């Protein structure tokens, strides 16, 4: 489907894109993603997957893009009025059947699906707390949006340029060691971070869901190219995920 770029906001190597996509905006659940086709003479062959960062339920969706390779660079350079070929919403989403507080743990631009989740939880009056980590201050995105949706937002940077110095899982470990037990954890970000989250969740007996990131050829569940061992079996990240129960994922390849 061709979607018009409504608005673009850039910060460093990141770009936020608002797309006119009523069908996706109506159907999307947090944790789902879209496949977007980069255009241009030097466009790569595959489309690129992006978690939905927000959806307004009627007209537009928002993507958060980090320009890291040829595909994401082309997409991050999109301008208002451009048309992008978008398919979605795809994949599974985060569970919304919780009552107690949810801890959202995001690393870098992994915060995208968690921001969407935070807004859905707020609408359902389910409290959530956000732990956001990055290498430096530039990596800590969407803080003001998260503050509106969550009961609290705590940050870490590895270089100490903002918030606590260290990794975001440090904050999660401290929080889980406290007395108020959360109902669930939802995490998205680098593999190594997700593996630590899964470990901490298991240690403290808290259910956790993680959104996995991987290279995808089709994004539709037909090619079997993006599998991951989950519950001892290969499952397709694009169609059986990208959100999985952290305890079921084989982290040995992380």
């Amino acid at each position, binding site marked *: 489907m061709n979607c018009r770029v409504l608005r673009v906001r850039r910060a460093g190597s990141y770009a936020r894109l608002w797309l006119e996509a009523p069908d996706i905006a109506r159907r999307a659940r947090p944790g789902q993603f879209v496949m977007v*086709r980069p255009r241009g003479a030097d466009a*790569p*062959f*595959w*489309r690129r997957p992006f978690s939905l960062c927000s959806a307004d339920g009627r007209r537009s969706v928002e993507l958060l893009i980090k320009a890291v390779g040829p595909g994401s660079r082309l997409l991050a350079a999109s301008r208002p009025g451009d048309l992008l*070929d978008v*398919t979605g919403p795809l994949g599974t989403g985060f569970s919304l059947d919780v009552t107690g507080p949810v801890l959202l743990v995001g690393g870098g631009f992994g915060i995208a699906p968690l921001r969407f989740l935070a807004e859905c939880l707020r609408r359902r009056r389910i409290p959530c707390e956000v732990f956001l980590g990055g290498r430096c201050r530039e990596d800590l995105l969407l803080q003001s949006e998260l503050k509106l949706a969550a009961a609290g937002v705590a940050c870490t940077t590895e270089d100490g340029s903002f918030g606590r110095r260290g990794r975001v899982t440090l904050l999660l470990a401290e929080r889980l060691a406290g007395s108020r037990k959360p109902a669930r954890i939802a995490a998205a970000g680098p593999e190594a971070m997700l593996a630590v989250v899964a470990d901490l969740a298991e240690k403290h007996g808290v259910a956790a869901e993680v959104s996995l990131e991987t*290279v995808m*050829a*089709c*994004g*539709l*569940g*037909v*090619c*079997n*190219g*993006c*599998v*991951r061992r989950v519950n001892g*079996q*290969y499952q397709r990240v694009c*169609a059986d995920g990208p959100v999985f129960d952290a305890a079921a994922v084989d982290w040995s*390849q992380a």
Partner: protein
Amino acid sequence: MSPRAAAPSLSCTVGRVRLAAPVLLASGTCGYGLELAGHVDFPALGGVVLKSLTQEPRAGNPMPRVAECSQGMLNAIGLANVGVEAFCREKWPKVKALPCAVLANVAGASQAEYVAVARRLDRLDGLAGLELNVSCPNVSHGGMEFGREPRVLERLVAAVRKATKRPLWVKLTPNVADIAPLARAAEAAGADAITVINTLRGLRMDLKQQRPVLGNVTGGLSGPAIMPVALFHVYRAAGAVKIPVVGCGGIETAEDALEFILAGASAVQVGTATFRRPRAAELIAAGLRRQLQARGLRSLKPLIGAGRI
């Protein structure tokens, strides 16, 4: 009547298989068909060729299984599938309801396995035909082994031919010196049609890790990068046999499809293009209709092989 008024029809028969359009989704790129519900308009297609089935379920190859290339991609999935029995029991009741022709694709590590899978599929009500995968480059046993030696291929196809009365297509590999003897072997053993081609063997290196990208080391190249190679093999195979040739390899547009038809293909399969544009195959069918209209033709038939010299 002006040519405009004569509404062109895309409906055709390939061997004994009736198709609403000469465009099918290629095996391995449309799953069991069901995955594409909501992304593909099935009645606009001729049909789908389901992913390869083996006797037992197969987990497939280790990751990474795919690698991006210039104008194409490598895959080494390793025939991951649920196994023929689970397919027949659990998937087929839903798959048979797809509003287009459905062909199953058969793979195996031995002749006995091909025969057993074909025999099981033969019992399915509503299956339009079988396609034999003798061209998978990504498994250690079977796969291409059966598709590179004319005598071996002929024996295999003859054995499967005995196991099923359904239309039988044989999907050939381009990884041979000459495809013509293999096309003739398939024909001699009773194949109704041949599909030309499967993927080309390829490899990519990971510069950081200094090792091949794919877990399987090698993979099969698909996408527009292989289109001229596929077209050559179709041209060559169509000159070697009387049974229909189904063209496959890198087709992205109606113009690409028309090149295959002029080279001698009776129909085409669209594979990797679906990944880039889920509606690619139906757009190709619509484009072919326009091509007929522009030429004042009512069917594709006069164009099949019309470019052969």
